[in-house]
């Protein structure tokens, strides 16, 4: 944490600022909550990375006769309705679950932050119009919004990301706008205006760095929601098309065998839940750390 106090006189001046918006990972270890969350997420990321190398079966290898089998030595999590190995499908399916939600939320943060920054700082009619539009989007039940978007543009990885991003943007823009409304009245912003700084400088150098913490924590929670949403889309048959091992679709298909082999529905559901919980725990922990820092 301690920075060197002395800089040599010929210190290069091109360095405008060190990256300030970063989670201090060393500090994450101080919060057990954050640590558990991070461990869960890390587990799935590792699974997604090494999965293709460790899975015992291909995702489409089906074993004749081994339909809806409970966990056994051969299939440690059992098999599905086509005799495919659930463990292999779950591990390979982790790939999309650790990439699509962050992509969707990343896109939403980009959109929502831009909208919120401008609306909050400009105010007036611009704020009115943009925020009312966001309210319209927010007024739709989320699942309905997904249905409309996916039905309109078709089910594919990109479209799922777009749908989730569109549905997530309004909430983020509201959050950012709220933060900006507070920050823009701070005296350091007045000082910047008195130097004749451009709006872009004020937004991105003076205001945004101070809003970054809450945006980051909120984004993390939203990655959890997005995972859940993508699971729900898969469950409704609107996720990635069939050969892909989609956790939501796996849970949905296993419904027909829920009495016979409850584990087939349980494991994909647990997998989705664990990511949601992981994101929430990490976000809570980070929030706690940020608070204790003040």
């Amino acid at each position, binding site marked *: 944490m301690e920075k060197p106090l*002395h800089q040599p*006189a010929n210190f290069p*001046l091109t360095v405008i600022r060190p990256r300030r918006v970063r989670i201090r990972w060393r500090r994450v270890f101080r919060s057990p909550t954050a640590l558990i969350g991070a461990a869960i997420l890390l587990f799935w990321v590792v699974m997604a990375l090494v999965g293709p190398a460790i899975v015992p079966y291909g995702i489409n290898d089906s074993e004749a006769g081994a339909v809806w089998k409970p966990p056994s030595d051969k299939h440690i999590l059992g098999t599905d309705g086509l005799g495919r190995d659930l463990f292999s499908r779950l591990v390979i399916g982790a790939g999309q679950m650790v990439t699509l939600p962050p992509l969707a939320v990343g896109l939403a943060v980009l959109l929502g932050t831009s909208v919120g920054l401008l609306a909050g700082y400009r105010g007036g009619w611009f704020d009115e119009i943009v925020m009312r539009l966001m309210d319209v989007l927010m007024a739709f039940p989320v699942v309905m919004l997904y249905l409309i978007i996916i039905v309109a543009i078709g089910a594919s990885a990109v479209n799922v990301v777009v749908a989730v991003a569109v549905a997530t943007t309004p909430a983020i823009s509201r959050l950012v706008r709220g933060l900006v409304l507070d920050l823009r009245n701070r005296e*350091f912003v007045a000082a910047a205006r*008195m130097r004749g*700084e451009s709006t872009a400088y004020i937004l991105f150098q003076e205001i945004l*760095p*101070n809003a970054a913490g809450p945006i980051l924590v909120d984004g993390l929670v939203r990655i959890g929601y997005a995972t859940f949403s993508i699971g729900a889309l898969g469950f409704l048959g609107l996720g990635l098309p069939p050969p892909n091992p989609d956790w939501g679709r796996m849970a949905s298909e296993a419904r027909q065998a829920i009495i016979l082999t409850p584990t087939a529905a349980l494991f994909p559901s647990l997998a989705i839940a664990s990511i949601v919980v992981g994101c929430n725990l990490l976000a809570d922990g980070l929030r706690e750390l940020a608070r204790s820092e003040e």
Partner: protein
Amino acid sequence: MAVLDIQSLNVNYRGRRGIARAVRGLSLTIGEGETYGLVGESGCGKSTVALSIMRYLPKQAEADGQILFQGQDLMQASDAHLRHLRGNRIAMVYQDPQASLNPVLTIEKQLTEVLLTHQNYSHAEARQRALAMLERVRMPDPEYILRRYPHQLSGGMQQRVVIAMALLLNPDLVIMDEPTTGLDVTVEASVLDLLEGLRREFKMAILYISHNLGVIARICDRVGVMYAGELVEQADKQALFAQPHHPYTVSLLRCLPQRGTRHTDELLYSIPGRVPPLTDLPPGCVFAARCPLVQPACTAGVPALESVGSNHLARCFRWEAVRQQPALAAAVRPAPASAPAAGESSLLSVNHLKVYFKQAAGLLGWGQGGDVKSVDDVSFSLAPQQTLGIVGESGCGKSTIARGLAGLTAVTGGAVTFAGHDFTQPIERRSQNALRQMQMVFQNPDSTLNPRHTIRKTLSRPLRRFKVVPPEQETEHIIGLLRAVNLDETYLDRLPRQLSGGEKQRVAIARALAGGPQLVLCDEPISALDVSVQAAVLNLLRELQQERKVALLFISHDLNVVRYLADQVVVIYLGRVCESGPTEAIFNPPYHPYTEALVSAIPEANPNAASHAIRLEGTVPSPANPPTGCRFHTRCPRKIGAICETHEPPAQETGDGHTIYCHIPLDELAAMQTAEKPVQHL
């Protein structure tokens, strides 16, 4: 038997940075009917003492020692017993009355609740008592007040309600934690009058906590001075103010601008350094690092609280030396040579400045959307290198004037000419050169610097924007700026949160000066700082003004400070000028009645100071609907009749550039104000 007897109280807070030893070995007693003042800068442990008595300390705090309340140890008391004592026998009055009152209950509900919970009153009896108590705290029209909600009362009235609530059950001990700190001087003065009367009437013991020596001098019998968690001096009020024996007390008193001292005479005394962190206390005397009388012995051993006179304790090895005060006296620095007398040319001239805020009309256009006339027809001018002070209560439009001049708030009308530029335009239309000439220092040290920017970045930005130096000389220049505000290059890469309030404000001053402005607007730059730091920042402003030849527009509610620093003063009430002129003329009769009230409201750090009878009741009326005629007539103690309500007061000149806007002829005003004997006001 003493009402409160605290014996060797220790309080530690467990935190991430280790254990903060917030209170160490504190002993004090308060007898019946006695008011004990606990004074010190922020972070010295005063409030922790109050919380320990009430047993309100947070979970991470550990306390040991004895707190005897009428002989029973509160530290051992059961929760049920404590509940009985709090409110019933021990009451507390906090700083912010708004936080003490429940916003959704009427005053009647809140007052009677105290009686109904703690004692077996019937509703009718409780109401009677509440009513009687409101009368005793001198509330006008108590029946009406009972039906009000807290937000319908002014800050001063709210604090009276809180005081009434505390006194309802006739407690034996009342703890008051900065009860007047958030109030305007005029309101503070009348609340202090009230407290002075009540403490005689009720014969209760009061523990009065304040950072303001002036308030302590007015209201207390005995005073304890706390520094970094220790009681460093304790004495009767008269003895303490007449002959302090601890260097910290001496320094605190010396930091205050004395009535009559001017910036041209001497620099203020200031305490170097800062309060040591309570997690990492130095060995020996805690004040040694900042003490002008420090000797090697001071850092070697811890001084004990020893008797230095009758009822007078001081925690200092060198109290005998303090009594003679040679070193402290030598610490007075002469003021730098004064600015050349102002020429005829004016740097800033403001004519009929108006700043109105549009009030939104009601839903669907119903209701009247009038203008809030924050600044309404204000004129003044400022010569190069001079200091203009603007004073007035909060809500008078002082800050709005500064924001209007700065272009941060749109100007509605009038003409502002500054260094040849038209400054009525909003900031976006001003040229970079015009912007460079006028910079601002803000009030709140916590929001004046961007928390995410290092000091280097904060200071390099204006250098770049105003093209002060080529980039390769930037660091050198920033270090120069830091040195000018008595900081050094070790601060370059620190973030604002690693700085104390005073240091942040110094950086803010350096930022304002970076572009080489001709005028710096200072909007209450020291009001959020501790006394010792205030003095240092004032000196700094004064020195820099000389060195860098800037003019200052200094806005403050603190008249002593304005009197010390300003060459010219403008007194503002409800967006209008009441009085303007050279400082000496403003602070001597004839005064405008409003100025007179402001001057007499200042609590002085001198127990023998005469208390003047001029008190303002009520608060500033709404600028959305200002009174007709003279705007001050609703509160004016010298109102002469209907003319004040119907006609705007004429500008009366005394000849030396001093103008008073009042209907009363100047010679009559002067006669009234000099003839009047100071009256002890209850």
